[in-house]
């Protein structure tokens, strides 16, 4: 959604960002309903298969193997109709920014063969430092892409039910379920707050007023969304929710699911052997 009124304004910027956030949250459910390679598979197969690939990614000792898993994740995403743009904006940018900040010192602090000296700073980029940072970045990017595959190709309720099949404790599953609902409530509440503020604001806000508003909004938002998510849990309890996820659709393994499970197992075993 694009707001035509003062597009550069602080409130308008926040409202637009919140709309985009809401769209992103809803995008996952829409994407899970599309026709693609992974979408029709049994949720248990995807949970087991993708988690095993994440495990192999985390323990792999060869950069080439992790890079191959990354390529596999990208191919699976494209075949599941998750676009390159979605991967770049939702996964890789965040990975690069947050993991990059952690990996950056390793480039210069890891002892080894000098590759480049930063002029005037006495910092030496080493070959070993570059490899260490590469491992970290590639591992995180691959794991995050695989995790996104699960969330974007499976309705959230099915993911939760599959986790219960694998004996993940009820408390953990409830917390995951509530976390998803909490994020949505937080975004909706924030959106309402900023829209209501916009309706009562004339002219642009100066920097101090923006700061004051941001601080005040954060506190109010946290309180309101906490209270709302508490109420959501009460409403679930009122309709007999006891922690178990019950769905109309029963999980049933079809031929394609067994084939996919074998495919995931084969890939994970091959990657574990190659990356040892």
């Amino acid at each position, binding site marked *: 959604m694009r707001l035509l009124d003062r597009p550069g304004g602080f409130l308008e910027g926040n409202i637009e960002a919140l709309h985009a956030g809401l769209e992103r949250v809803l995008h996952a459910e829409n994407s899970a309903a599309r026709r693609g390679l992974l979408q029709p598979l049994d949720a248990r197969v995807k949970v087991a298969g993708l988690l095993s690939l994440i495990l192999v990614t985390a323990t792999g000792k060869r950069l080439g193997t992790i890079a191959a898993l990354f390529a596999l994740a990208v191919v699976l995403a494209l075949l599941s109709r998750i676009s390159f743009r979605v991967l770049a904006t939702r996964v890789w940018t965040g990975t690069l920014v947050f993991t990059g900040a952690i990996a950056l010192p390793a480039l210069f602090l890891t002892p080894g063969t000098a590759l480049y000296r930063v002029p005037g700073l006495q910092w030496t980029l080493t070959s070993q430092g570059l490899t260490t940072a590469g491992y970290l970045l590639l591992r995180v990017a691959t794991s995050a892409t695989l995790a996104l595959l699960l969330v974007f190709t499976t309705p959230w309720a099915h993911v939760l039910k599959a986790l219960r099949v694998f004996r993940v404790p009820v408390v953990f599953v409830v917390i995951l379920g509530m976390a998803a609902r909490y994020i949505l409530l937080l975004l909706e509440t924030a959106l309402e707050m900023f829209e209501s503020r916009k309706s009562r604001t004339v002219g642009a806000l100066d920097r101090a007023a923006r700061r004051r508003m941001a601080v005040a909004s954060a506190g109010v938002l946290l309180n309101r969304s906490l209270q709302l998510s508490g*109420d959501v849990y009460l409403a679930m309890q009122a309709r007999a929710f006891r922690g178990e996820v019950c769905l109309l659709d029963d999980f049933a393994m079809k031929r394609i699911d067994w084939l996919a499970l074998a495919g995931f197992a084969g890939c994970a075993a091959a990657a574990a052997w190659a990356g040892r």
Partner: protein
Amino acid sequence: MMLFETERLTYRYGNVTAIAGLTLSIREGSRVALVGANGSGKSTLLRILDGLYFGETGAVRFRGEALTEDRFAGDEFAFSFRRQVGLVFQNPDVQLFNPTVFDEVAFGPLQLGWPKPDVRQRVSEALDRFGIAHLRDRVPHRLSFGEKKRVALASVLVLDPAVLLLDEPTAALDPRSQSQLIDLLVEWGGGAKSVITATHHLGDLEDIADRCLVLDGGRLAAEGAPAEILRDRALLERSNLVHAHRHRHRSGEVHSHPHMHPGKLDPGD
């Protein structure tokens, strides 16, 4: 037989007392309105009656059995109680947490372990009955407020509970939706069910209740038939359910009289 009884019940949110030593009883099969201004303790009482909150002191009984946290820890009692008692929250947003309207209405029956073909049939019937069949595949939190309210109500009434607790069911609805909702509630169960409605809309009282309990500051201020309560102007003013409305006549005379939204006091008012 008594449906609900509370005895010297107290409930606090931190330092704020919401229910202060409340003693009341509600008969099986009755239609009761909990009337009170904002903050009088109506919503808290409904949550206590639904076994979601538990009083700090005092007792609550449902058909003679104590409603305690320990009893809800066991599946048998919890499922049996949830099968019999349904609560519709004031804010429909808190009741809508499923990906589609159909899933939302199916949530309760599935939790109660109903057979899946029955769930599908009952949910479809409920959607038709509430005029929301065309919304079955929509995302609930993207609906209009009135539609959300209908989905929230359908998600509880699909369970066909013997006892229905309603928190401000007509709040923030347009007049047509209000009247449709009240008709639906009046028709529901052919009048054989128990309905407890929290409201501060005095105009709805005679339609939705045959007995009123007026709450004020978490205490029972009065009880009686709706007509009796509506006639007691001093009580309504004391409980902040009506306010003095001041206006100027053409002659210049300033006139003030009790006022409520929408008005249903004596015609002479």
